[in-house]
């Protein structure tokens, strides 16, 4: 395998792994948060507005961890610095 192939394969593999793990945790966390919020609203319907606002803010916090993983995956796939450097060095080696 050439350097380029190794970089590409590991980047793609890691991007998939990043998204899968980054979806696991936030999904579990958001499920628990939503379930707690629903049961709280069932117990205290008058506090629904304050509860749902807090739920939204909490979901945003949890969601941001998933977004971090997604951003890392996107960087690996589309803006990979190692890939660009390897391409440049390969081009220089071929006299391009």
């Amino acid at each position, binding site marked *: 395998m050439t350097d380029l192939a190794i970089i590409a394969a590991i980047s793609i593999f890691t991007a998939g792994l990043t998204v899968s793990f980054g979806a696991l945790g936030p999904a579990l966390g958001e499920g628990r948060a939503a379930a707690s919020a629903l049961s709280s609203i069932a117990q205290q319907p008058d506090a629904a507005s*304050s*509860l749902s*606002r807090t739920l939204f803010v909490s979901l945003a916090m949890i*969601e941001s961890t998933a*977004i971090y993983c*997604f*951003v890392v995956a*996107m960087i690996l796939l*589309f803006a990979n610095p190692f890939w660009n450097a390897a391409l440049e060095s390969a081009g220089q080696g071929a006299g391009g």
Partner: protein
Amino acid sequence: MELTPDDTIVLTVGGFALNATILFTWIVMAILTAVSVLITRNLRPDVPPDRWRTTLEAIVLTIQSQIDEISARPDRRLLYFAGTLFLFIVTSNLLMIVPGWRSPTASLSTTAALALAVLVAAPLFGISSRGLGGYLHSYVEPNVIMLPFNIIGEFSRGVSLAIRLYGNVMSGAVIAAILLGVAPFFFPVVMDMLGLLTGVVQAYIFAILAIVYISSATTPPDSSSLPAQEQT
């Protein structure tokens, strides 16, 4: 594959490259300014409010009521700051239904600047309401051991604000572009609808978190500013 509108150079004027982010940011600013000026042009008590003015009043009052619910001590300046943040983000996100529109919030530069504004605003609001000593004392709140963690927390808030908005808007645009190549004509429409929803939700969350951070900087420690713990 372009992840950010920063890389799109629209035109070059005398060695200064104007990229798409700056262009669309100025377009959003122009739209907001023009609409506000046009609606409030003849703002007199003897003129009955038309539909535009009623719309604007409804928007401003909704933002004001949200702030009043969250903040223990509502500040008039908070409405200007958080309301501007919300209107700017929601306008740039909702205009993505216009063909060729590149939302400025899909660039990390824009979102980092907005988060930086919140990071700078929180100490200013805190100092103006509690005094310099009172604000600085909030960093050693439980005890002095927590000082570095409070400072780190302050910065990580800003980083997460910036990356959350950027990641959401950018991912919507990227996924739409990928699906455009895979299954055109149908899937991008569905993803655009999802993008409109997340655009509004993220704008709301950005503004709400800005209000929460600023409120927590302005309120003294004995009264909690968390919306979950307020006694109604």
